[in-house]
């Protein structure tokens, strides 16, 4: 009965091993303290996109419990994006209470100290009553902030070990040039899930679960092998980051997002194939054809997208260490953060970005795609708290991973390597 299973993805990464993976890191509080100190306070964290703050003075605030910080991200008059701690230099009140807004200057609501968009202290009421106060020394505390392909990242370490480019490029240079700037209609959901951040992320970095968790919804949008399995096209692991490439079923509306912008025979086929079983899907695709503000041709994508060159390629999952899931499709993308609030609580901020649509029909299509995706997320989220509770029973010490769960293994491996690195005194 025993079939010989050909393990091939793992063979490329012998340092990861093939053995069981311990679950202690998913439930241990001391382990989480080390993750906070060595990962979340030391690495680049995605906080948003440049399109969210297009004008000078536009800002948003990110509360980062994992870093014990609240960070103001603001565009200044020169067009640069700055990030600074939301902590007044006088007696430490939070400078900004709103989640986002527009400011000429930031005025502390406690005693009225004023800071400009670069964080410089510019005004102190009754300044003459202070003692040797040099305003130049008491601006807001800046944190490192940089932009990669329109994504804003911050790093709490004032002297990051790697620049953002050095951090991203070894794995993602080949996807630079993806048309992020043409995909600017964004939606966001958020939820607090009672589970460890790695456990949440893991549920998104493999496709082994698709036939089961998504069996009634989008399983038919994934390319299926003869035996019913949904093997990925390929997987890549780097020093920090990882990637997984997935094929779709071009005859389904959800599995062929390119149809709406490319039109032609593929679109007609998806409409015809969906007409009976999924007439709303077919109507949405008919309605959306020709409405996008840009054409998105697969052949114009950077060469790192669909790196296996598969005809039915649907999307690549990119996991940007530590907690940023960026899934890129030919003409839309998902950006999720699995950000810890504590060892057993995770804030999921899920965003999806589509091309702008010019017509009501296009907007209807977007709503169809968005709602389908959101419901798929409700499916994905359904297992997490059950799994966390089950892990915490302590009856199992290890999990067993198959070849196509390589990214789960790699994620655990990288975190563990950093957490257990000897501290350099």
């Amino acid at each position, binding site marked *: 009965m025993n079939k010989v299973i050909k393990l091939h993805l793992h063979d490329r990464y012998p340092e990861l091993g093939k053995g069981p993976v311990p679950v202690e890191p998913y439930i241990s509080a001391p382990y989480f303290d080390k993750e906070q100190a060595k990962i979340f306070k030391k690495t680049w964290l995605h906080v948003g996109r440049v399109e969210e703050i297009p004008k000078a003075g536009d800002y948003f605030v990110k509360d980062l419990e994992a870093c014990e910080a609240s960070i103001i991200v603001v565009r200044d008059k020169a067009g640069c994006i700055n990030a600074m701690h939301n902590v007044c230099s006088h007696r430490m009140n939070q400078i900004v209470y709103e989640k986002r807004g527009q400011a000429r200057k930031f005025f502390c609501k406690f005693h009225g100290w004023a800071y400009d968009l670069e964080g410089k202290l510019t005004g102190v009421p009754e300044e003459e009553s202070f003692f040797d106060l040099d305003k130049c020394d008491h601006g807001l505390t800046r944190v490192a902030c940089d932009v990669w392909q329109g994504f804003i990242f911050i790093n709490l370490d004032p002297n990051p070990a790697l620049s953002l480019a050095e951090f991203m490029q070894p794995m993602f240079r080949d996807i630079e040039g993806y048309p992020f700037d043409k995909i600017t209609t964004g*939606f966001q959901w958020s*939820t607090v899930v009672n589970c460890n951040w790695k456990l949440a992320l893991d549920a998104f970095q493999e496709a082994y679960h698709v036939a089961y968790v998504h069996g009634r919804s989008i399983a038919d949008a994934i390319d299926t092998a003869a035996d019913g399995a949904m093997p990925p096209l390929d997987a890549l692991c780097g020093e920090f980051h990882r990637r997984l490439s997935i094929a779709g079923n071009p005859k389904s509306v959800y599995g062929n997002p390119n149809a709406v912008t490319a039109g032609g025979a593929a679109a007609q086929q998806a409409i015809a194939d969906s007409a009976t079983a999924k007439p709303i899907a077919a109507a949405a695709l008919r309605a959306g054809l020709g409405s996008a503000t840009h054409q998105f041709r697969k052949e114009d994508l950077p060469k790192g997208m669909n790196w296996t060159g598969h005809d039915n390629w649907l999307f690549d999952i990119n996991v940007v260490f530590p907690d940023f899931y960026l899934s890129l499709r030919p003409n839309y993308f998902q950006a999720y953060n699995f950000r810890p609030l504590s060892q057993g609580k995770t804030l999921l901020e899920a965003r999806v970005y589509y091309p*702008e649509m010019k017509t009501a029909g296009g907007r209807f299509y977007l709503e169809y795609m968005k709602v389908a995706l959101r419901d798929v997320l409700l499916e994905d989220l359904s297992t997490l708290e059950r799994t966390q509770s089950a892990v915490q029973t302590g009856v199992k010490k290890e999990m067993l991973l198959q070849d196509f769960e390589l990214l789960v293994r790699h994620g655990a491996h990288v975190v563990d390597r950093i957490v257990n690195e000897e501290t350099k005194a």
Partner: protein
Amino acid sequence: MSTHQNPPTLPPRFAALQTYIHWSLATETERTRMRNTSQMAEIVAFKDAMLVEVDAIVDYLNGFPLDAMPPQEAALMHMLLSLAEVAPAVEAYRQPGVIDGYAFERFKADETFVMRPPI
């Protein structure tokens, strides 16, 4: 403070859909709640009524600017978005909510997210 307004009216061409005007909801949060708190029979009746007209509705609404629809057209647009909202209920789950799904109320749409389209 809530203001009680008369239900919106639809463009005359689509007056027959007025029975379903309670599906004309401006936000995803409202549309999702409506779907998840309706009976399947109500969802199917709404879907059936919309689906026979859907191409005509799209054609008609395509004649108006998406970011500046007059009130009647906006009301119809919101029903079109509700049709998208119920699609998985009808075409995937055959029940209002996601089967074994995470509680929809816990997964909150951020209606203030700045990059949302105007409608």
